[in-house]
């Protein structure tokens, strides 16, 4: 029993160590990148805070003095690290609100979007991929491949716009923007889900095709299981492992999609905030956002590891 607990605990502990390292690296790299960008931070911040029409050198100078932007960079970074240790992400340089408070709101919206997009992508991508894998080389396989290539090749921005024109402007089924109810959630999450489904359907197809041709399934049939039971009991479980691992990877890819989709649909999530914070050179907000995203990736990887372990007990035995 103790061995079993260790089997689950060990990867979690190693992930925890990784999380600490990620936090440190992401914070430092974010800080360095923000200061490597061309342009003057005080001017950018002042333009964002007061609006472009009123920003001038005087406002920028006041901003520099107020925020101590001319202090040595190393000191500013050390201060940030010191605060992070105390779980304080500082205040946004533009709005003056605590970063943690802004992130809490934005993270809620992004979680909602991702939480809708991911199951939706699984709902679209997996059945299509499984069908393509079971009928490999036949017409469903070709049709799913063409669709996947098309959806993957179209940038999220263009896909979102096309869905907006079709479903909102022409058919009037869904609102094209806003964030007040479930209806507003559909278009952005569908845009994300279609891009994700394009990849997950391919992985599911390959995985199912490999399992379908494997001795495991052949043995299942040979011992007398019906085709349906063979696929259900032995096929799906074996095929699920690579699919799950890829779903985990996709969550990371989701971040990229979220930046674009949130901006296009005006969804007030973490991706939208990150884009604006970068333009505004709002360093604490960029660092905080990157930190949360980095930790999120580690957390998801841990969850995927754990799920793979539960589906495939052989892995744990090998490790032990």
């Amino acid at each position: 029993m103790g061995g079993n607990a260790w089997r689950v605990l060990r990867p979690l502990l190693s992930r925890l160590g990784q999380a600490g390292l990620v936090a440190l690296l992401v914070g430092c790299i974010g800080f360095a990148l923000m200061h490597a960008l061309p342009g003057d931070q005080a001017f950018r911040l002042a333009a964002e805070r007061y609006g472009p029409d009123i920003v001038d050198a005087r406002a920028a100078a006041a901003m520099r003095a107020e925020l101590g932007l001319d202090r040595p960079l190393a000191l500013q970074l050390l201060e940030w690290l010191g605060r992070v240790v105390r779980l304080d992400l500082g205040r946004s340089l533009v709005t003056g609100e605590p970063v943690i408070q802004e992130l809490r709101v934005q993270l809620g919206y992004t979680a909602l979007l991702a939480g809708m997009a991911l199951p939706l992508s699984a709902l679209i991508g997996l059945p299509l991929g499984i069908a393509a894998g079971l009928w490999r080389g036949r017409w469903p396989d070709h049709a799913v491949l063409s669709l996947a290539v098309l959806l993957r090749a179209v940038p999220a921005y263009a896909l979102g716009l096309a869905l907006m024109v079709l479903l909102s402007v022409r058919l009037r089924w869904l609102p094209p923007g806003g964030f007040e109810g479930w209806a507003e959630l559909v278009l952005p999450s569908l845009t994300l889900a279609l891009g994700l489904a394009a990849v997950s359907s391919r992985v599911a197809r390959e995985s199912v095709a490999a399992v379908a041709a494997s001795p495991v399934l052949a043995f299942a049939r040979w011992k007398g299981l019906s085709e349906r039971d063979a696929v259900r009991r032995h096929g799906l479980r074996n095929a699920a492992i690579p699919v799950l691992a890829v779903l985990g990877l996709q969550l990371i890819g989701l971040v990229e999609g979220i930046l674009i989709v949130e901006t296009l649909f005006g969804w007030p999530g973490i991706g939208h905030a990150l884009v604006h914070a970068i333009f505004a050179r709002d360093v604490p907000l960029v660092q905080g956002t990157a930190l949360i995203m980095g930790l999120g990736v580690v957390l998801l990887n841990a969850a995927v590891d754990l799920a793979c372990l539960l589906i495939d007990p052989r892995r744990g035995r090998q490790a032990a």
Partner: protein
Amino acid sequence: MRRRRLPALAAACLAPALRPVAAQAATGTGAGAVDERVLRIVAPIEIGGLDPARSGFIFTRMGVVETLLAADAEGRPVPALAERWSVDAAGLEWRFTLRPGLRFHDGSAVTPGAAVASLRRALADATALARAPVATLDVAGRDVVIRLARPFSILPAVLANYGSGILAPASYDAAGHVQAVIGTGPYRVLSITAPMRLEVERFDLWWGPRPEISRAIYLVAGQGEARAAMAESGQADLVFGLHPATMARLRRNPALEVRAVAIPRSRILKLNLASPFFDSLAERQALDLAIDRQGIATALLRNPSLAATQLLPPMTGDWHLADLPPAERDLPRARALLASAGWTPGPDGILRDRQGRRFRVVLTTYSTWPELPAIATALQAQFREIGVDVDVSIGNTSDIPRLHRDVTLELGLMSRNYALVPDPLGTILTDFAPQGSDWGAMHWTDPQLAAALARLEGATAPEERRALTQRASAILHEQRPVIPIAWSELAVAIGRRVGHVAIDPFETSYRLQDMRWREP
């Protein structure tokens, strides 16, 4: 339009965001709303903070925050929180008498002391008021008394700027940060989800006539295409900031009215007059003559009447010179002027001066206004025809002030708002000050303009003001310290649900309180 609130999961995610809002809503004066229709406004500009100095314009436009004075459609000062005002003979002591019985949205009384406290904060921040020569701010009975260091005739216009908005003392926390926007306007804040959404409801203790629209939402959509789609799908009653390319399509939509209102904003070319390329008037005139303004206005802005023959558009009244002939493109004259300034074409067609220096400059612009990069490349092609080689550098809004400060700017294409203060003098005074300005002249002074502007600051007689204003505009036109390219319009899509919509060219207010539903 029926909307369902996000159920439990969303509520749990968003609870921290919504809590302060709920608290704020609970303290207000509930209107007992019967009319469930909500007016929806979609615009590109995000809510960047609660302080009037920051995104104050959103709160004044939505009728949440008011100023002592406001501006009418011509930019003239009109009473707002102050019912009347007066100035002493020396033009130094101004008195603004507050309306009786004014209430803030939290129910507290609006006192001259509270108004003075808000104005003091504005003085200390990057606002229009901070640029006025204010010496002291005091309270006398029901009056706010502002004493100036020198006469400043446009003080009423400066007080109509959003940065001079009046908030309740309870708006500020102990450190002086605005924690809630408690204003005095016809609408009070119901919820804010910064930076994307603001919801307001009618404030029943407002001093003016009771508005018909009881609730309204300000929603941000940064992408022009998304805004157009929101208008087309009936998701929004008013959509501001339409791109020229989508206007024609929206105009064909029978469910929408598209209105374009001329506004005091100009796209201009800022020149570094200390550079050897632009130090002579002949060079600046040559550039001016090489520009195909009609082409730019027609092809890129889809409205030929926006071609800017002078700095300020006709709607700015005395600032516009009515008798000026239209600006014609004249390449032979432009070449002759450049030759007279010592520039002759080299073997590659690019001009060279007597020292053999090529006429090659960098034009800096930014993409906040999506038309600017396109105009920049049009100018690049047009200047090439007179042998001027232009590199276009597209960055962000802060590049032009920064390069002005570094003295490394050569040419800057920008969109300048002359209505930050509803009298263009407020902006002209800083933009063309003798020492130059980030968004105006660079290494250019003109003693006659300086004298005219100095007199305008103190002048009050209408005839004198008119003569001085026209004189100042004429000097700016003759000397071309900046070269005007195109004027601007504010394009709005209006849904059929709503009537009595008046678009304020000075963008101080959406005038929600005057709007009506078309069907009761």
